[in-house]
């Protein structure tokens, strides 16, 4: 590919915002004809593919929650996005340099995309590029065994917010359920620092991996940190950032999933 013809970063970011807005509209029921294939502009297909890669698993959310119907054309778009922006070898996650081994955030996001495609009926061996990683052990290294402090841990959860989607379960979810007080502390810290995007991403984890806030640290009198008031607060007072509103919509999707009676403790098929 001719690198000179590639759109600059700003164009990709703008395309990601446009796609985020469209996913939000689909999730909110304002667009019942959402199709990934329609997101590729005729004049700038690369930007649309970049947006699909930037949003990663989140781009599939309308299909996962059932508001849109996944088609072969949509699967082709994801495959094209992986082809245009291929999976790189895992790079060390610099967010927690003291912890070894550190999880690879891109690899885990791609794992999530692969899982969702599988749920949507795509052959897991299809050449879409997602989920092609060395081993499950390597993939989840650093997610289960180590016990980083709550600031470092919630920093990782923020990076892995795209895993907090309905239908996904993983060692990260297990830890997040166990450490829900830490997640709630992270939400608190993020809102107070005016880092609203991170607040919304952690609220997704509160919604997708609810757990007891009570326990050894606190007595039973502490009320769990409810996600919905935080989400409403961010929605009404957090400005117009499309990425923020995507996180809010996805947190609500996770809450709705958690409320579904059929939803047990999860199948744990990582």
């Amino acid at each position, binding site marked *: 590919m001719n690198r000179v013809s590639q759109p600059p970063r700003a164009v990709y970011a703008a395309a990601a915002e446009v796609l985020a807005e469209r996913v939000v509209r689909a999730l909110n029921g304002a667009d019942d004809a959402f199709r990934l294939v329609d997101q590729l502009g005729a004049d700038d297909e690369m930007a649309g593919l970049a947006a699909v890669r930037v949003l990663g698993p989140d781009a599939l959310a309308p299909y996962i929650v059932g508001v849109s119907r996944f088609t072969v054309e949509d699967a082709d778009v994801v495959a094209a996005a992986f082809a245009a922006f291929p999976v790189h070898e895992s790079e060390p996650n610099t967010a927690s340099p003291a912890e070894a081994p550190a999880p690879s955030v891109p690899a885990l996001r791609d794992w999530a995309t692969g899982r969702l495609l599988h749920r949507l009926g795509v052959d897991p061996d299809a050449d879409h590029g997602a989920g092609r990683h060395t081993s499950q052990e390597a993939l989840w290294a650093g997610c289960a065994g180590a016990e980083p402090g*709550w*600031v470092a841990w919630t920093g990782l959860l923020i990076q892995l917010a795209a895993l907090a989607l309905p239908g996904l379960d993983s060692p990260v979810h297990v830890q997040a359920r166990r450490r829900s*007080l830490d997640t*709630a*502390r*992270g*939400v*608190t*810290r993020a*809102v*107070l*620092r005016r880092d609203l995007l991170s*607040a919304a991403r952690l609220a997704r984890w509160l919604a997708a991996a609810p757990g007891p*806030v*009570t326990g050894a*640290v*606190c*007595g*039973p*009198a*502490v*009320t769990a*940190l409810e996600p919905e*008031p*935080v989400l409403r*607060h961010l929605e009404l007072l957090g400005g117009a950032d499309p990425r923020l509103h995507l996180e809010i919509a996805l947190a609500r999707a996770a809450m709705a999933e958690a409320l579904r009676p059929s939803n047990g403790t999860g199948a744990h098929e990582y």
Partner: protein
Amino acid sequence: MGRVRMSTDTETEWAVSAQRVADRAWRWLDANHTEFALPPDVAAPELDVVRHLKPLTELALAGSIAVREGTTGRHATTAAHTLVEFAWAQLHDGNLLCDIQRERPLDTTPLEMYAPFVRAGRRNAELDAQLNHLAGLRATRVPEHVPNRMLAMINSERLVGLATTWDVPALTGRTWLGATPEPWTADLSTLYAMTHTVYHLADWGARPSGLPTRIQDYLRAWLPAWLEVYLEAGHWDLVSELLMVDLCLVEPAYPAQAWERLAAVQLPDGMLPAEAWRDARNPATLVRNHYHSTLVAAMAGTLGVARRLDPQRS
């Protein structure tokens, strides 16, 4: 080979920092407290509460905590007695508070200012008589105070020994903290209200059980988040207050990193800058701007050393 608990060092690191913070803060207070001498030519009722009276009260408060705890080392104890004595002398052994009360009978400031001196063993018979009389009036039972200041007044009445009764649980419920609110709504002024609700209910760490269990649980959950935010912001004054809140709990968390950070940002002469961004060099404003954070650091460090020796207090 003998059994060595490897965790001992990390368990006590915070206490080493607390001791260090306290020692140096007391040194600075000892050297700078006369800055808060009252202006000689201003009549008692005309003294400004914030500019003149509040700093003196706070010197006495910090001194009274160290006198009460009595565990902070030779220098701190000497400095604590010096501060109480200085402030008491500035108030003419309490007579100045009588003058203010005569001018403004419903003002609870004299009572609240008097309480730390009582804690440190000072009494003024005329003021005692005034306060006893006023406490018996219906008029003083309904002060128009914000909720956390009601608790300040009630704790002062208790320390002074006034025979009053209040529905403390109901009044606690009217404070911001008492509502156990969404922790992500906290801001600077509500957090200062929160710290003072804790101080007055727990009498500045003397009786942690004065804090209802549900509030202890709430604080154990969210204090770490608030502490982290204001450590990152370099708001050392509030960080010190939050560390003192921790020491008012039945089971403090003793956050070692926060204590170490506080010790690290304290200046060599013992002054703790109020905020990382505030000018800590201008000699004209230095003491006024940074005395409060240094006082809180002295109190928190002192209480830390005391809780280290007496962790089970209730």
